[in-house]
């Protein structure tokens, strides 16, 4: 019924590429974004490590990165990418802009989650003489955990959308397959199949996220 030029192998490779790109950039993006989000919360006016200067640099910086369309971002940082992974094309090269794209996004979501923590909890922590690090680790993060998981889930799904653009630098992946074959070549079968794969990915991620969040909320 459908005709396609994509081979099964290409599908497999694309799936692996997507998982690899999403996984790596989520991992590193979280390692960057979560601390940034925490930094936003603790240094903001009234925060436990209030720091006007730091906050008024970090806050707009995050905005600047967030305001760049992904493709522009990708091009703008090519020299940086090359410095890090030695090349500006391929899956590894795609991960660099993906990280830079997702980190500030995660930072904002984390900020929003942490701001919802009951101020009384922070007071309790302060009354115990907890250091700022301890406040973050033993109080803020556990209390916001359910919300944080949902935030990371949202970020992950956003990341899947962004990996589609990764094809631009030859990153491959399912989204790229959808664009190159489905969009550019009107290959309906490729389009439908890739979309189904993406839906399955997203579904798995969201269900896992929801389940974890539910558990974290002790429901």
């Amino acid at each position, binding site marked *: 019924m459908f005709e396609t030029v994509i081979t099964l192998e290409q599908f497999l490779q694309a799936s692996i590429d997507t998982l690899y790109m999403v996984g790596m950039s989520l991992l590193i993006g979280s390692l960057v974004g979560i601390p940034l989000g925490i930094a936003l919360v603790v240094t903001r006016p009234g925060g436990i490590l209030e720091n006007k200067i730091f906050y008024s640099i970090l806050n707009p910086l995050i905005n600047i990165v967030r305001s760049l369309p992904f493709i522009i971002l990708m091009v703008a940082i090519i020299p940086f990418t090359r410095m890090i992974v030695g090349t500006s094309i391929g899956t590894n090269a795609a991960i660099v802009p993906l990280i830079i794209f997702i980190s500030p996004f995660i930072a904002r979501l984390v900020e929003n989650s942490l701001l919802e923590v009951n101020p009384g909890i922070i007071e*309790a922590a*302060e009354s115990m003489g907890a250091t700022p690090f301890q406040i973050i680790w*033993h109080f803020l993060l*556990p209390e916001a955990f359910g919300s944080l998981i949902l935030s990371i889930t949202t970020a992950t799904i956003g990341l899947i959308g962004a990996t589609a653009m990764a094809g631009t630098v030859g990153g491959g992946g399912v989204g790229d397959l959808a664009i190159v074959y489905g969009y550019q070549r009107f290959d309906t079968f490729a389009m439908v199949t890739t979309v189904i794969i993406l839906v399955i990915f997203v579904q798995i991620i969201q269900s896992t996220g929801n389940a974890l969040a539910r558990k*974290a909320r*002790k429901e």
Partner: protein
Amino acid sequence: MIEMKSVYKTYKRKDVTTEALKGIDLKVEEGDIFGVIGYSGAGKSTLVRLVNYLERPTDGEVIVDGQVLNHLSDSQLRAMKKQIGMIFQHFNLLESKTIFDNVAIPLVLAKKPKEEIKQRVMELLDFVGLREKAKSYPRELSGGQKQRVGIARALASNPKILLCDEATSALDPQTTQSILQLLKRVNQEYNITIMIITHEMSVIQEVCNRVAVMEAGEIIEEGSVLDVFGHPKHPTTKNFVKTVIHNSIPESVKRSLKKTGDSKVFRVEVKGEVASEPIVHQVMKAHDIEVNILFANMTEIQETTLVIMYLQIAGEASAIEKAVQFLKDKGAGVEEVVK
């Protein structure tokens, strides 16, 4: 141990200004169990929150353990706070952690070994009667159970100072009793200084040696509990003392009071040893008078008995006068009550 020098605290938001504290001078000695009472909104919580610097004074100095808090660095402040346990009015438990973990937190922060933590926490949970709730989460507890978790948490790290903001307000009298006994014990055994905010006079009566009465951001009366309870000066204090030392004649007795021409009503206050002597009997036997006990109340404050009676004495004027003198000689405080 804790000292405040003309401390002011003002909250401002837009055009609304609240003067929560207006010039507080206060001294809590080491080993004191210091009670603070006052109407709702008097500034009690604000006062205690200044002691561990959760709130900064708008003006004035807070001195804890000889150190002026305003002058301490962040890390010095943290070290200080580690010595101060706090029981919050609203508990402030971590919803994401089990009861065990909530109580363990101060020990975890102090990096105590796991085994020690486990033992200490179970000991505390045992004490507050929540051993079987160790694996529950705060949302699964009743109000009083949450409060007990807060108490256990504050005690976990053996603080030198303990601040209790309405620590027993959600507890039944028995549990309150056992908590107060514990406070007394830690106070005596480890010489811990305790500051208790409460609106229950019975709590102060039970454990405090000193008390301050607050009203509208000011301390209106302060002193040893026996003094303040025995002779409250300020009307507010009188109101509070009334709630534990029922020293007014019940309405129903007043109503049925026989207004015989020659009877008089006296308020008689007896303290200490004398209280256990049969002085009413003695006065009756020794004089030609008729005595009706309109009201009698015995209270124990700091292990001393305080007796307050309203006696209606009938008889000849001279006999009554002699009887009063007899009571006074016995060491009782006697005042005539104008009907």
